[in-house]
């Protein structure tokens, strides 16, 4: 049944996506909510919380302020905190009650900016969409605001990585491995949005020759950079042994021709043969599917439980919006590679391989998370 699950988890919400994407950029993020969003985010969705400081706060919304539309309380509190902490920017977003109350975050952000002189923007979260929607809007807002100058391209080939958050890539070295691979493939890194780079690094994004989109939450920003600076993008994650070469080649071609490419979706899962199923974020899962097909010869299908544009899916990939659809798709598969929290709905006669995805199971299986970048895959079928 739609919107119902007996036993599986649910993906991190849009508010967590906002916080995760903006975590390292020196801004202040305020989630307009009573308490739960920040507690959930900082406990389950943010592995950097303990060791790396960031100005992520909750507004501590009350019933009275929500009903009376007391936006001045939020504005005053944000202004006061900004004066104490001097963030580089201020991002405001909301949970379900502000949605119901019709809180106008862009207007509040404009007011905050006029009172503090600090760049501020309002985002359209609701706590009812996935992290991808929030992370996407947040990154696009930052890039739109701060990445305005068309800098000369770097002398050597270079790239930005767009869409990196711990929700998709944990903190197990995967992002660092992607950067190493990019360097080995002949590209300097201009910025990694948004792990390991500063806001000033991101401001120089227009100097890159090409953009590598590693999660669908980076696509809107890549499109913005294409529109603003003509920088082409390539979507894919360099997993496995052979697929990284395909991706590197696509990056070189894109940098040369200016044409965008989707190697992660250049597959065909439409044949009737039983396939290996990979549920998850589409660019990563599509890349893994391509890698498994080329490295191990097993036909794959991506199961998409999240928001994703059609162009990110290959023919035969399917959308699974609820637990029943996941169970049905697993039952029709030869093998499943998925987050362990999908295991209870996988039939016992279908082999299940665990691949933790922090955006689904939080920190439960972090110790098992795998770095699959540019190396042999750990499975045999």
């Amino acid at each position, binding site marked *: 049944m739609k919107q119902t699950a007996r*036993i599986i988890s649910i993906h991190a919400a849009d508010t967590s996506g906002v916080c995760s994407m903006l975590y390292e950029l020196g801004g202040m993020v305020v989630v307009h909510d009573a308490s739960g969003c920040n507690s959930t985010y900082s406990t389950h969705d943010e592995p950097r919380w*303990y060791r790396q*400081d960031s100005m992520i706060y909750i507004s*501590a919304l009350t019933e009275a302020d929500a009903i009376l539309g007391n936006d001045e309380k939020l504005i005053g509190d944000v202004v006061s905190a900004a004066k104490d*902490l001097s963030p580089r920017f201020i991002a405001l977003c909301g949970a379900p009650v502000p949605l119901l109350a019709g809180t106008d975050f862009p207007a509040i952000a404009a007011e905050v900016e006029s009172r503090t002189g600090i760049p501020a923007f309002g985002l359209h979260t609701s706590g*009812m969409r996935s992290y991808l929607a929030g992370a996407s809007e947040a990154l696009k807002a930052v890039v739109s605001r701060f990445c305005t100058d068309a800098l000369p391209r770097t002398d050597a080939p270079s790239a930005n990585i767009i869409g990196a958050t711990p929700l998709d890539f944990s903190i197990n070295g995967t992002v660092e491995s992607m950067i190493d691979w990019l360097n080995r493939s002949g590209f300097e890194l201009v910025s990694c949005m948004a792990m390991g780079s500063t806001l000033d690094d991101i401001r120089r994004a227009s100097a890159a020759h090409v953009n590598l989109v590693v999660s669908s939450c980076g696509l809107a920003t890549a499109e913005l950079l294409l529109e603003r600076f003509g920088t082409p993008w390539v979507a894919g994650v360099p997993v496995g042994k052979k697929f990284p070469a395909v991706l590197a080649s696509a990056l070189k071609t894109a940098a040369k021709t200016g044409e965008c490419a989707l190697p992660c979706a250049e597959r065909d899962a439409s044949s009737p043969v039983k396939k290996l199923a990979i549920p998850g974020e589409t660019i990563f899962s599509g890349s893994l599917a391509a890698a498994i097909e080329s490295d191990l010869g097993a036909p794959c299908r991506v199961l998409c439980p999240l928001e994703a544009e059609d162009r990110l899916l290959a023919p035969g990939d399917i959308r699974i919006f609820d637990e029943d659809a996941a169970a049905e798709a697993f039952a029709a598969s030869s093998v499943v590679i998925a987050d362990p929290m999908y295991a209870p709905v996988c039939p016992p006669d279908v082999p299940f391989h665990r691949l933790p995805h922090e955006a689904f199971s939080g920190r*439960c299986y972090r110790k098992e998370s795998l770095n699959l970048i540019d190396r042999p895959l750990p499975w045999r079928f």
Partner: protein
Amino acid sequence: MLKKLNGADDMTGAEVAIRDAEFPVPFVSGLEYNAPARGPWNIVHTGMLIPESHQVFACAQGCLRGVILTAAEMIAMDRMSWISVDKNDLFDGSLERNIVDGTAEIIRKLPKKPRAILLFISCVHLFAGCDFEVMLDELRAMFPDIDFIDCYMNPTMRKSGLTPDQLMRRQLYAPFMPCPADKNAVNLIGNDRPTDESSELVWLIRAAGRELRDITLCRTYDEYMRMAKSALNITYLPTAAASGDALEKRLGRRHLYLPLSYDLDEIERNLARFANALGIDTPDWTDAKRNALRALEQAKDVIGDTPVEIDYTATPRPVGLAALLAEYGFRVKRVYTDAMIEEERPSFERLRELAPDLLLTATVNVKMRFAGKGVHESGDVLAIGQKAAYFSGTKHFVNIVSGGGMYGFDGIARLAQRMIEAATHEQDTEAVIQHKGLGCRSCL
């Protein structure tokens, strides 16, 4: 780096000497930080205390995420299901239908029918004017052999009446129906961990020949339902008092609130009230009191002048505990609390005289983001509570929440013993305090 850039060494507004502090709220409210100390229980942990029950949460994705992963971390996903709320549901009149149909489908899919369903709705349902009673009536008609318990995850309403934590503790006993009273049984109500067997509270129950019943000790639903018969309900946590009041009103059971205290006179008064309610003579507590004081002296000998810091998650009366320790020579430096309960007023006044320089420090103030892991401390600290451990950066801490099951003179003696253990043994603070729901199983 951020600390320096942002001038977070300035703790104005986040810290105040008790002599200058206002009671009960010493700090101006504002944006809030969430410190990574996860030991205090949430409504999922508490609800799981009902044996053979299953939880169904109906709320938005962001809210679901926290409760589902709470269950996952405590290895209890087989007792947790959910129904998400979409934006359209708020406006197309389908909120109630989705919950009824979704819950019914979940129950049909469960491998074993639960004895009780804890059905949680959230802030948006209340704002949207959902008729919870109608939903429950329909579900009860469909599944007459299941007890449906209305539960609430409504933090937006936390200042409009009972907090979600208080509500949860009250609803924990909602299935209890009027029945003949069993005068030989006494309930401890609203706790999330057993009370020490050695405490005077339990001792009195045993001495009176009564049976002690406590949800934390129940292994089956039938055992749990037997609690409905107990003639006397005792609460001692402020968050549990509403549970006892509700049972008194609904079932006519006598309720005694005997607040957890660190004031020797108040402890004695509480125990006298309890003995009176049990119909037995009040024992002479001289030895128990002497043991408590001796334990404090021993702790003082070990801890010496090491600063002691206490936080509000360790005990509902951190100020009272600070006053006791200050009175017996400990160098209590700081109490972490954002507000104090009215019960703390006498201790607050006493502590002002005993230790006027003692600092009250907020935990949620935005500046506390940059105050963790001991950045404001030079030298070691003995902490009582996880937030005190986090902010002070110490590895020496008493790892308890909500009083830790310690009560009375015995509770003071045991706490003193725990302080000695904390002073003499290091813990991996980062690993320990990030486990959710102290005392629950954990997959981490």
